[in-house]
């Protein structure tokens, strides 16, 4: 701080607290609604203090209904983990090949991977759906995850990191008689630990929050993800929306990725900033 200004300091904290309050407001109200009975939510204006229905609502949402949320959460967890791990695995391998080998077609590979950056799933949604349908992958974990796995950003991140690894390491490994895969497993991969952790946080959230793609490739309820589940609760047509249960679901759906962000905050910020370089 350059100079002392007690009034400015006070105003700074005041605006920051207000900002944090506005950011938290929707989630606080969702939490309050998830602890009330449907009548209490409809009794406008809704109370701003949590009620005593917390346990009842969460138990109901997790276990009751035609598709209890716990199975949807399981599907979300499986696809988020498979997408994150799959993306990291195929990206780290191709970055290794592009950096540590010279082979005919290297530039072409690089450009093909780069192109994926320009083709977000929202843009090529229909033809991708047709391809996945013709491969018979609708309503399967493979269909939910594999089409989202190619990643230019992850490949670039690893390429950038490998380029910064000192030459001497590869030379020393070669002199000691290590082949390329031995070098990769024993030296490169352990060095890339922080990059892998950072990417994992970003990609887990990416996978968990996918909406349009699961919406298209799943028609059977046993393959719905949690994010699809919450959308289906509010499109009930004429039936009145049970806001207390919808908000209970919303809290449960955002809890896992929010926990990942909060518990792995250091890697999250690193991954966010570095994957855009």
């Amino acid at each position, binding site marked *: 701080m350059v100079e002392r200004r007690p009034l400015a300091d006070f105003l700074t904290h005041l605006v920051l607290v207000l900002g944090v309050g506005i950011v938290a407001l*929707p989630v606080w109200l969702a939490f309050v609604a998830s602890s009330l009975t449907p009548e209490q939510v409809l009794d406008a204006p809704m109370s701003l203090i949590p009620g005593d229905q917390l346990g009842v609502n969460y138990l109901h949402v997790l276990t009751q209904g035609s598709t209890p949320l716990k199975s949807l959460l399981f599907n979300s967890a499986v696809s988020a983990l498979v997408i994150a791990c799959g993306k990291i695995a195929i990206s780290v391998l191709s970055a290794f090949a592009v950096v540590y080998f010279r082979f005919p077609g290297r530039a072409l590979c690089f450009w*093909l991977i780069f192109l994926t950056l*320009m*083709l977000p799933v929202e843009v090529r949604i229909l*033809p991708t759906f047709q*391809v*996945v349908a013709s491969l018979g992958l609708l309503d399967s974990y493979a269909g939910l995850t594999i089409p989202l796995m190619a990643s230019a950003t992850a490949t670039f991140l690893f390429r950038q990191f490998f380029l910064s690894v000192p030459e001497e390491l590869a030379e020393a490994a070669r002199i000691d008689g290590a082949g390329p895969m031995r070098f990769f497993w024993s030296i490169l991969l352990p060095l890339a630990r922080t990059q892998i952790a950072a990417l994992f946080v970003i990609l887990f959230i990416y996978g968990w929050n996918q*909406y349009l793609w699961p919406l298209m490739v799943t028609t059977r309820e046993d393959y719905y993800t949690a994010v699809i589940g919450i959308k289906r609760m509010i499109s009930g047509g004429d039936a009145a929306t049970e806001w207390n249960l919808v908000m209970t679901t*919303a809290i449960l759906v*955002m809890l896992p990725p929010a926990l990942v962000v909060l518990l792995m905050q250091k890697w999250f910020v690193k991954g966010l900033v570095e994957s855009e370089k």
Partner: protein
Amino acid sequence: MEKRTVFRSAWLPYALVAPQLAVTLVFFIWPAAQALYQSVFVEDAFGIHVEFVGLANFRALLADPYYAQSFATTALFALCVAALSLGSALLLAVLANRVVRGAAAYKTLIIWPYAVAPVVAGVLWLFLFDPSVGTLGLVLKKIGVDWNPLLNGAQAMSMVVLAAAWKQVSYNFVFFLAGLQAIPKSLLEAAAIDGAGPATRFWKIVFPLLSPTAFFLLVVNVIYAFFDTFGVIDAATQGGPSKATEVLVYKVFHDGFKGQDFGAAAAQSVILMAIVIALTVAQFRYLEKRVNY
């Protein structure tokens, strides 16, 4: 930059890139080519007869007043989301960079909405602004606003803009804060000794040094508003009322998946691809500049 030490193998590099390339070719390049191909054909309702029509799909699209309207809606939406989320994130980042005590706590409390899925953000704000039970909807009614986003297009638009911007503030905040922390303290202290007040220091030193970050974030925010907000819109308004919030990505989904008009949807996809390519090129031009900075 190239490695001097490389390994030699005739087959290993191909095996290493094979999984990435397979996914890329099957799920990215093939569908994109398919979209290009379908955009110049018209298919009859039963999918039996296919006819080459050249650019007729594009011509029909550009003559369609609904498409022009969707373009204008998307531009307005992207502009509002970018302005709102960049402005508030910059304010919060400047303030958080200023405080000595509690900076880490503020940071933690601001970054977590990044983890919220767009659909969930849409549902949360839909509840907040519900005209009969929503807390903010009732406040608006109490102060005399005839609030009903289910009927009023402008109100529906402001609701989805708020929801989309709310989710993006945390991302912008992280980048602005990193940019601010990279500004050397000595510069600011030297300016202060020369008699520059806080406002002068911000506009003459901090803001120019932050402008590359701001430009990068502008591009990212526009891409976000164009392509990643499908969930917000689908949950909060479904493109309504009377198409007031039907952005381009929502229209592709609606025309193609629900309306089964593959030719028109493919032509829309091709136009969207052109937009992403233009934005990505803009982003990389910026990266080149930053390297030379």
